[in-house]
Structures are given as structure tokens and as C-alpha cells.
């Protein structure tokens, strides 16, 4: 039976150990956005000895490139993008303190191994529910790479963002388990 668990960033491995694949999570606190181009820049900068644009320890990264905020709105539609494109960078960031990734779609074996080794989790947001997801975002501010437009790094404050645990720190994988439970020969 799955549970609904409230989490607040910054996250610790100790708290994440309680999560199991299939659990529902309502996430609150600061979440940083980043997708393809931002990940490339962040990792290249760190490899060159520079600081990342936000503290990685305990951080949650949301793979999203929001649509422009209409007048009077905090943000536009803000659902997850497909995560595997960030797989090349994720293990590096996990080894340096990243604790949660929010996206949609399968992760590679290296990312899963890094999550188990360093105690991080992968949370799925519902793909294509961008208007719904925007409701859980209470603040949004571009903090790095404004030239990337929708791909710029944003600092979001979220309140009860609805997510599912896909990969937990124990090796559980909801994409495999859920599919196996409903597959017919």
C-alpha cells in the first residue's frame, strides 16, 4: 500500500530512506529548475573549479522549462520534461549532494546506482499536467543563465507539489514494478 508523505527541502538521506517506490509525495520548499543546457553549463563550470549557481547539498532539481508567465501570474505551465536527457550529468551532481530529481520517464543504470550509493531519489511529476503543476508554485525567480530563456535556472518555492516516488534509495523502481503488475502476456 502506498503512502502519502510530506517532504520539505533541503532533503537528507535519512528522511529519504523512509520513502518507497510507489509512495505519493507532497513536496514543499525551494526547488531549482534545470534541463539540458543548464545541466551542461553547471557540470562544465564545476569541473572547471567554479561554484554551482545554487547549493547542491540536500537540493531538489526539477527538470522543467516553463512556459512564459501570463500577466499577473507567477509562472506559466510547468510540468516535467523527459529525464533521461539529464542522465549524463545526474551522477556527478548526486555525488556532490543532490538529493532529489523531479521529472518524468526512465533513468539510466548509472543514475540508479548513484541514487542507491548516495541516498538520493527520483520523483515523477505527471507529464503534460503543466497547468496543474503551476498551481503548486508560489514563487519563481531566474537565478542563472537568463540567456537560455525557458532553460534558465530558476529558484522556485513550491507548496505541496504532487509527485510519485519512482526510484527510492533501496533500489525500488515504480516504472518496472507498476508495469509488471499490469502487463498481460
Amino acid at each position, binding site marked *: 500500500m502506498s503512502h502519502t508523505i510530506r517532504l520539505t527541502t533541503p532533503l537528507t538521506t535519512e528522511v529519504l530512506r523512509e520513502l518507497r517506490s510507489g509512495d505519493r509525495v507532497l513536496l514543499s520548499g525551494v526547488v531549482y529548475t534545470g534541463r539540458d543546457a543548464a545541466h551542461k553549463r553547471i557540470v562544465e563550470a564545476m569541473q572547471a573549479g567554479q561554484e554551482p549557481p545554487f547549493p547542491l547539498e540536500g537540493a531538489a532539481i526539477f527538470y522543467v522549462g516553463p*512556459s512564459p508567465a501570463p500577466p499577473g501570474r507567477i509562472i506559466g*505551465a510547468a510540468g516535467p520534461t523527459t529525464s533521461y536527457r539529464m542522465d549524463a550529468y545526474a551522477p556527478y551532481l548526486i555525488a556532490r549532494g543532490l538529493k532529489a530529481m523531479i521529472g518524468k520517464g526512465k533513468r539510466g543504470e548509472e543514475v540508479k546506482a548513484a541514487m542507491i550509493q548516495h541516498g538520493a531519489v527520483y520523483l515523477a511529476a505527471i507529464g503534460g499536467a503543466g*497547468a496543474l503543476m503551476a498551481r503548486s508554485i508560489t514563487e519563481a525567480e531566474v537565478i542563472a543563465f537568463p540567456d537560455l530563456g525557458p*532553460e534558465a535556472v530558476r529558484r522556485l518555492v513550491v507548496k505541496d507539489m504532487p509527485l510519485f516516488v519512482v526510484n527510492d534509495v533501496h533500489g525500488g523502481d515504480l516504472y518496472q514494478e*507498476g508495469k509488471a503488475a499490469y502487463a498481460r502476456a
Partner: protein
Amino acid sequence: MPVPREIDVALVRDTVAELCGQADLLLPEDVRQALARSMAAEESPVGREVLARLIENADIARDEAMPMCQDCGLAVIFLDIGQDVHLVGGDLIAAVNQGVREGYERHYLRKSVCHPFTRQNTGDNTPAVVHVGIVPGDKIHLWVVPKGGGSENMSKVFLLTPAMGLKGVKERVIETVEAAGPNPCPPIILGVAVGGTFDDACRRAKRALLRELDSLNPDPEAAALEAELLELVNHTGIGPAGLGGRVTALGVFVDIRPCHIASLPLAVNVQCHAARHKEAVL
């Protein structure tokens, strides 16, 4: 001899701009109904919750004039131009692109088009991909189809050997869905084109996505394959959002046509549940 009917490309531009907004903000009614119907077929509680959230998302998008999905797509435009139409007022393709430019700006849609290598965003969601065909009559039928990257990336084209036949076609379609898994935002819709050539199959697979869900395919051979593929896809267990369940696809559209004696082309265009397309007749 009929007198050509003049249509100003400015009308095409303005129509494209308006349809870009409608397409990204308003879930087509057939898709909405299919999502609602699929709730009854879904055995997974999580699957049902995802489907309910998708319907709620469509309501929020409509009521708050927000795009359904932050990926507002690369604008694919189909233009069926009547052969008795005389286009005036400038370059047709330039007018279409101007319509995309204006529509994406006016409706606060995300610009998602960039240079393939530098990844520099073009800044206005152009160039659009435009498919032009000539048909009888004196009207223009146009469709605006914003195509998201997540589902497009999971699409495949196969040049099968004739020996692989119908069995090979079915296996490749299911293989495509299995490989895509949760990535293309299921429940998905599949555009499947068999026959033709390499390029023609891809275009027809995309065009097949314009059909209404649950519309009857006039080709009985294609209709039978649609039903069989839909059942096979929904046996994969992938389910809504890929979290496990019965409803992996809302529909499969198949288009079959003859091909070269040496060939068996197959194109599978994967479409997410935000199956955005709006049309107009000018």
C-alpha cells in the same frame, strides 16, 4: 473554367496565430472524452488518479488560459489548398511562420525551437514545419499541430523487409511503445503508416494523428489492425504516466498504402495525451 478564388495570405497568417493559441490551451473534446471513458477501464488506482489529474489539468488550462503543457511544441502545419485558390498578398510559408511567431507571443506559449548544434533558441518558435498538399475545390483546410519533443523523440521509422510482413509491423509497433515506456507521457496516441516511401511514411504517420479518436477508419484492413494494436499496446502494463496500468494508449490510427516491391516502410509517430490540433477551413 472556374474563376480562381483569391485568398490573402494575411488570412492564413491570422488563422495560424489564433489556432496556435487554441491548440495549446484547449484539449480537443474527443481526447477529453477518451480520457474520461478510460477511467472506467483503468484498474490501477494510481492510473485512475493520473487520468483524473489530466482532466483537471485540461480544465485549469481552459479556465485560466494557460497552456496544458509547458512544451507548447514545434508548430507543424498542414495546408490542403484547393486547386481553384489563388493565393495573394505575399509568400505563403512566410505568412505561416509569421502566424506562428504572433500566436506563440500573444498566447504566452513557450518557444521551443533551436539550432540543432549550438542549441541557440530561435526566439519565436519558427521555423514551423509546413506540409502543403493540393486538393480539389476553392478552399484552404489548415491544421495547426503543436508537437511536443518528449513524444516525438520516441517515434520511429523502420524499413522492413517484405518477408517481415504484418507480423513484423506489429512487433515493431509494440517494440516502439515498450522502448518509449513512460517517456512520451502516456496514455499515448499512435500514428502508424505502412507502405509508401521512407519520407512519405513519416508524413502520413504524423497526418494520421489528425483523426478524431474513435472515428472509424474507412479502410477495413487498417481498422482491424488499429483494434489489434490498441489491445496489444494496452497489454504492456505501462499505464497512465507510465506508473503501471491498463490504459497505455487512447487510440491507434493506421494508414496503409502500396509500396515498392522491395520495401515495407513503417513509421510510428508517438503522440502524448495532450494531443493538440486545431483546424479551420478558409
